């Protein structure tokens, strides 16, 4: 009969520490630099999702019960406000439709691309991401509902953020207030272009690299400029709350608050932006390969257009 040796110890703790630390560092590099482990993440999240839903259940139930007992008065008041809002928005949306059709006609004349988002997927915010180091939320729509990485997310006020990781049934949205999360923006009043960058913890937005001489004031509104091809143009991003112009610095220091209720909404809309499909993220390595192949094939045989030209 096989018997285990009396003193089985295996590698020493220090050897194990070295091995597993190196493994952890390799995993971190693979995830951060090369995004190589998205499948692992997806697989684990598929298993975790039902468990997380189950653990969120008590809290959900409590808040539902709380909702149930909200007073009649409050509901009536809410309803009145919402009805008024619907009427206001109805007028605005009819005008917008007119403008959009005019815009489409003009665009067709100029043979350019339509850049309006036409579909959206309404998603419910399930919870904040459990990570004190970043500002992300989890919504209840995922790959199964047609979401993909990079799609813009808005609410009634403006841009909320961008889908950064997609699971099968949930997705992670990085808020525009996350540190270094940037959005190409344009000043409504004079069309000044800039890039807004999240500040991190205090929920404000920084607009760097605007010259101190630029025409910009408190209360100015930044909307998306649409030049990135990800965010459709014209969505509200931020309102400027402080402009500091110091002669000692080349750039003005501009701080804004996000136009959307970034931290306090329950439903958001993920824009399934058709423009995003027409501006893919450049695959530089792939392009180079393709370019090389095309150059090679062109060298082998002349383009057919060149042959036919003399006859016609």
């Amino acid at each position, binding site marked *: 009969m096989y018997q285990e040796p009396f003193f089985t110890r295996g590698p020493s*703790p*220090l050897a*194990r*520490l070295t091995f*597993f*630390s190196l*493994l*952890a*560092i*390799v*995993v*971190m590099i*693979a*995830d*951060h630099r090369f995004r190589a*482990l998205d499948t*692992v*993440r997806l697989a*684990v*999240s598929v298993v*975790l999702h039902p*468990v*997380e839903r189950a*653990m*969120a259940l008590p*809290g959900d139930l409590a808040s539902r019960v709380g909702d149930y007992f909200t007073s009649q008065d409050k509901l009536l008041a809410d309803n009145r406000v919402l009805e008024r809002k619907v009427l206001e928005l109805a007028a605005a949306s009819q005008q917008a439709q007119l403008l959009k059709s005019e815009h489409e006609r003009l665009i067709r004349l100029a043979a350019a691309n339509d850049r309006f988002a036409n579909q959206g997927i309404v998603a419910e915010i*399930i*919870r*904040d*991401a*459990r*990570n*004190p*180091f*970043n500002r*992300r939320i*989890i919504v209840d729509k995922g790959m199964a509902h047609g979401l993909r990485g990079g799609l813009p997310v808005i609410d009634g006020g403006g841009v909320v953020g961008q889908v950064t*990781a997609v699971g099968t049934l949930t997705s*992670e949205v990085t808020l525009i207030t996350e*540190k*270094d999360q940037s959005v190409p923006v344009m000043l409504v009043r004079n069309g000044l272009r800039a890039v807004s960058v999240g500040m*991190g*913890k205090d929920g404000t937005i920084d607009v760097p690299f605007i010259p101190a001489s630029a025409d910009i004031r408190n209360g100015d509104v930044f909307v998306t400029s649409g030049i990135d091809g990800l965010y459709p143009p014209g969505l509200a991003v931020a309102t400027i709350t402080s402009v500091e112009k110091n002669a000692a610095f080349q750039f003005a220091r501009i701080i804004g608050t996000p136009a959307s209720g970034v931290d306090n909404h329950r439903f958001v809309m993920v824009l399934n932006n058709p423009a995003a499909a027409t501006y893919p993220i450049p695959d530089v390595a792939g392009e180079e390969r393709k370019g090389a192949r095309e150059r090679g094939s062109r060298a082998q045989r002349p383009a057919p257009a060149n042959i036919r030209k003399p006859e016609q």
Partner: protein
Amino acid sequence: MAYGDLSPISREPMRPPAPLRVVFGALFVALLINLLPWSGTPLLIRPDFVLLVLLFWAVHEPRIIGQGMGFALALVMDVADSALLGQHALAYVIATFLAQVLRLRILQLTVAEQALHVGGILFVSTAVMLLLNSMLGRDFPGVALFLSPILGAMLWPVVRAVTAWQKLRLPPPTTMMR
């Protein structure tokens, strides 16, 4: 301990090993607690229950739970917390290593002294996470972050009492020997 005292240094070697269902059951329950929808300040000061239970088993059942298990659990935590993969892994592996090295020492201390050691280990793991996140360019989330290892150390007696509960350790009735 006086010279010539023949009482055992620790009763631990005399104790039968914990059944696997208790070891993994406790880890699973800790994972569930970690997966509650925490946010805001409670999230910041929340002790890492998974790491706490992991340390407990690394000290008490070193043959079952070691750095490999810590690594695997950490990857699950990374996905759950939408953190960079491998971030918890490094912290957990270092913490488990410290628990393994300090194991014999921890086993002969009183509960309060054990909690101090565990608090130190938890602090190291929090510091590792903080270091990695600041290398990624994230902001310091607040001094309250360091309440987490302190609260964790205060929970150590609780974890110890629950997981060492004798009734859990009895074999299930069907296989009980007559």
